[in-house]
């Protein structure tokens, strides 16, 4: 791997060297490095691009890293990664994509991550997206995440996209069995003329299932964002979604919440707030000696933390 790819890898996965545990590093459309453990196997798909990650039942305190980096301008790929997580597991999965585009052609990574999670398992899934390079070519990422969460399983999903991705369309859908719990935290910042769309659909089918969708975003300059969330309560369940956005400059943000109760004991809440940075917040930080620009940066960084 070259220096640009190493930098991307550090940005999206915090990796300086080969990670501990299972991993698969994909660079410019090819798998360049892979490691498996006694409990976690990674197998290349034969019918299409992508891998199967198979985690044995009872696997505890293990991690999987599957970062993707693209540094070749004009490369477009569509990748399918399927995760099969057995019963009674406790694992962390770090995915992410970094694109460096120094050329004039658009680079694009579309990935579909499907999770089939057994019973009583805990999965933490972290996904970071990052773009760099000063070429005219766009950096495009369209991640799709599909989750089937088994009985009494718990998934925490954290997605972060802070810099450099010109266009993104993110689709996340999940079905929850009895007692299953899903927490999704999304952090998003757009600038320039970037566009970001984020769609969530959660079906709470099982009794006692619950979900919490939290989106925090900042739209700067001429960028646009759309946040659409759909929560369906099909049993006794609890659902909450929250979209909190800071708008700056000439940006545009839309939040479209939809909550549907198909059961008497489905308790569903949606909160959405869009607004500019409160003037008094900037003034308070200025009284501590920060300039207006420093104050703004501090507020945005804290908000997206």
């Amino acid at each position: 791997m070259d220096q640009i790819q190493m930098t991307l890898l550090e940005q999206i996965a915090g990796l300086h060297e080969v990670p501990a545990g299972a991993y698969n590093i994909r660079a410019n459309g090819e798998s360049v490095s892979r490691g498996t453990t006694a409990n976690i196997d990674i197998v290349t798909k034969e019918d299409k691009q992508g891998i199967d990650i198979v985690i044995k039942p009872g696997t505890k305190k293990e991690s999987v890293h599957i970062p993707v980096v693209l540094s070749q301008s004009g490369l477009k790929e569509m990748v399918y990664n399927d995760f099969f997580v057995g019963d009674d597991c406790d694992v962390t999965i770090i995915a992410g994509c970094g694109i460096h585009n120094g050329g004039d052609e658009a680079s694009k990574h579309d990935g579909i991550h499907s999770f089939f999670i057994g019973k009583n398992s805990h999965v933490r899934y972290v996904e970071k997206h990052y773009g760099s390079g000063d070429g005219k070519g766009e950096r495009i990422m369209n991640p799709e995440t599909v989750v089937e969460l088994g009985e009494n399983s718990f998934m925490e999903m954290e997605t972060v996209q802070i810099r450099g991705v010109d266009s993104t369309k993110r689709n996340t859908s999940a079905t929850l069995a009895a007692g299953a719990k899903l927490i999704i935290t999304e952090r998003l910042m757009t600038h320039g003329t970037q566009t970001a769309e984020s769609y969530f659909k959660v079906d709470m089918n099982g009794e006692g299932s619950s979900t919490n969708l939290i989106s925090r975003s900042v739209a700067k300059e001429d960028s646009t964002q759309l946040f659409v969330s759909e929560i369906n309560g099909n049993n006794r369940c609890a659902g909450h979604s929250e979209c909190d956005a800071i708008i700056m400059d000439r940006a545009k943000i839309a939040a479209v919440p939809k909550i549907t109760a198909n059961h008497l004991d489905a308790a569903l809440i949606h909160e959405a707030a869009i607004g500019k940075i409160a003037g008094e917040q900037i003034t308070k930080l200025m009284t501590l000696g920060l300039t207006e620009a420093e104050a703004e940066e501090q507020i945005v960084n804290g908000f997206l933390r």
Partner: protein
Amino acid sequence: MLELKNLSFQVPDANSSKKEIIKNINLKLKDHTFTVITGPNGGGKSTLAKLIMGMEMPTDGQILWNGQDITALNVTERAKLGISFAFQQPVRFKGIKVKDLITLAAGEKLSTSSACEFLSKVGLCARDYINRDVDGSLSGGELKRIEIATIIARNTPLSVFDEPEAGIDLWSFNNLIKVFEEMHEKRENSLIIISHQERILNIADEVVVIADGSVKAQGAREDILPELLNGTSSCKFYQ
């Protein structure tokens, strides 16, 4: 020394004429002095505090700080010259932690234990607060104490407190008085406190009475306070 010269502040009112909030105020506030500015509600005290910090700009007059004309300087520039301001209603932030705010106030990297020291000074059990967000999950009294901790962390030659007693419970208030007493005992810095509270007035060196945008009385506490607290004659200032 802080000097206000012929300071005026007007705002446009409904009838497109101008309303005078501060009327030609002249004040000299000596170094290492604890001054309480008091007076009836709506008299212009908070506006005066904001003018000193640069959060409002005067329509006329001058503000001098140690002889330097700071009238045209913005909030950041005045903060850097050593003026601090404690808000009457502390500001809430989503995602900024108590430790972040105290670190920004101190202007240097702080270890958790030194950040905790500032919180302990305002009577907060530091460990419970240091990693909390400065947001709506904190009560009014807690926010107020954190606000004051930021002023202690800054340790500037001049600190302006806008009604520190507003919105806090009695227990917090007792603690607040102690904090002011300690700050005052050191006599390192000057304090200007906008307040109605007799207990705060009792520990002042100087008292300034502001009503209807003007200075109605100014002098040593011993001279001003008896008249102020005497039921009938206090009306003298409040009329």
